[in-house]
């Protein structure tokens, strides 16, 4: 049976409980082609069931919900099944399994969690804010994984006196800090009026970037390894 769920944590936990004993279960929140004879079920979130599942999983591994939330951020195509297989193994073993890296399910989940964590770490560096006329900061991003809101605490701690918007243009949503509260909102297109000095600072940054490079030591392969091309779109220094 194919179990469709909406990608949220509670829907996952509900679907997980329903599918747990189904050996041929396929969990997905994407659009999955049904093969002939395959049954599908659209899982409605059941808060009571979700809470029960969460409680049990937390008893087994206190860190399991953090792992689940990270897995559900992943943009990898197979992430629903990676998460399902991992939690099914966790539930059947009844003890933390994270270090059992020789298990396929654990290795896959570990790699997936690692990729999300790496992108969060990278984006802490690669986010580029523009200063708006209002003084607020605006940064468009287009990450592989759904991490916009996960970036907020980092910037909120260092830029606490500036309201800012981190706009995931790929997913049409924005993580917003208004100077006091943080929230996530759908946002397709943003109209941004830049401050008078913004372009001058960007141009100064580009000059710095050029000057600090040592041309006789060109290593573009390394550059692309550390800063993959897909992240260049919003970096003034690469445009």
């Amino acid at each position, binding site marked *: 049976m194919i179990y469709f769920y909406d990608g949220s944590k509670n829907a996952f936990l509900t679907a997980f409980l329903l599918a747990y004993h189904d050996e041929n279960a396929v969990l997905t929140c994407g659009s999955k082609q049904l093969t002939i004879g395959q049954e599908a079920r659209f899982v409605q979130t059941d808060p009571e069931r979700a809470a029960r599942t969460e409680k049990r999983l937390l008893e087994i591994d206190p860190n399991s919900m953090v792992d689940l939330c990270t897995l559900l951020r992943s943009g990898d195509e197979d992430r629903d099944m990676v998460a399902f297989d991992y939690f099914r193994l966790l539930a059947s073993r009844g003890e933390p399994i994270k*270090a059992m890296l020789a298990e396929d399910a654990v290795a896959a989940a570990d790699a997936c969690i690692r990729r999300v964590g790496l992108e969060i770490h990278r984006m802490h560096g690669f986010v580029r804010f523009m200063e708006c006329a209002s003084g607020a900061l605006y940064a468009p991003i287009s990450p592989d994984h759904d991490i916009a809101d996960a970036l907020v605490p980092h910037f909120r701690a260092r830029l606490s006196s500036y309201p800012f918007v981190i706009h995931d243009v790929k997913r049409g949503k924005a993580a917003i800090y208004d100077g006091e509260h943080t929230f996530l909102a759908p946002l397709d297109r943003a109209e941004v009026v830049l401050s008078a000095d913004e372009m001058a600072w960007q141009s100064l940054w580009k000059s710095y970037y050029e000057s600090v490079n040592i041309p006789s030591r060109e290593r573009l392969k390394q550059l692309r390894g*550390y800063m993959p091309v897909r992240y260049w779109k919003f970096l003034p220094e690469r445009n």
Partner: protein
Amino acid sequence: MISEEKLRILTESAKYDVSCSSSGSARKNNGGMGNGYAAGCCHSFTPDGRCISLLKILLSNDCIFNCKYCMSRSEADVPRMTATPDEICELVMDFYKRNYIEGLFLSSAVVKSPNFAMEQLLLTVKKLRTEYHFFGYIHVKGIPRADEGLVRETALYADRMSFNLELPTERSLKLLAPQKSKESLLVPMQRLQREKSIFKEEKRKGHFLPAGQTTQLIVGASPEPDGLILRLTQSLYQKAGLKRVYYSSYVPLVHDSLLPDIPAGERREHRLYQADWLLRFYGFTAEEIVEDDGNLSLELDPKCSWALRNFQYFPVEVNRAPLEMLLRVPGIGARSAYKITEARKYTKLTFEDLKKMRVVLKRARHFITTDGKFYGERQQSAVRGLLTSGETHENAVQLSLFSDLETARSALTGEL
């Protein structure tokens, strides 16, 4: 706003300093802008493959010293520029706000006198902290021969300070940097280290170099062998308590009869960094790593080279070997070693298991058994041949700027 020309000139003269790391400080944002990010953070990468973490800039390039290798030496005919403390502070604030940088790496030529230059550095960072309320990362270069009071006060505002040793022996310093001496560099380092420990013991309020001290050595401008450089490095880590020693392979910017005209091989710099890693994280000593001729092998990385010289210790069984021994297996990095010690608690690891765990086995397979099975070559000479042919030029990337976790991790797992 600082002029573009000034920014360019003051950056050009600062860029050969290798250090860019922003790690080691967890300074809190105390009602202003910025904080420390203990793991460090890279904000961009330049076409030379280096990371930009800090705004690396000179306050001035107008120098009275005449170090032969330096593009800002007093004899050089180059445009001279000096920035005001406010120009630097403004630049830091506006770059930081846009998330271009993690902080400031401020250095200066010796303008007028060592004390004057140090005073200007102090003035700038003090202003940045107290008037601009900047709590991000600050690395300040120490000026040799500056008054110790000025250096100590600077340390109260900086996260990290560094005096560059530049050359590994007094003789080379005399020849190439006549106004510097080993003493003028080592003594302030030791003094800062002492003061830091007193500061800690007395639990004084505030900060005193939370990210410690580093230094830099130029490799290839003078004739010292790798062994001497590594023994110096080792004692700087053990006795002077330094956090990092950076190696900068010499780039001839200046023609002088005392200096080589060819750049030092970047392969050599790469090998020194690998050896440095072995000293800090893998439990090796300088004496163990260096070859009989007093240098590192250019053909093989220092861990492979050590393992071949000590072939009698191998192969080791991954299911039983202590962590210290796993760390000595070529190809197994710190992360892989840790993964192995964790995973083997639950099951007997096979060769396939290691593959699944993404342990790099190309080199390691000659030095390990997995559940008693051996998949490598038994003859030392055959192993040497395989390892040497696997060392293409591509593998010899410059690993000089580990400022973020992930680069450090890839180097730990893949490169050694």
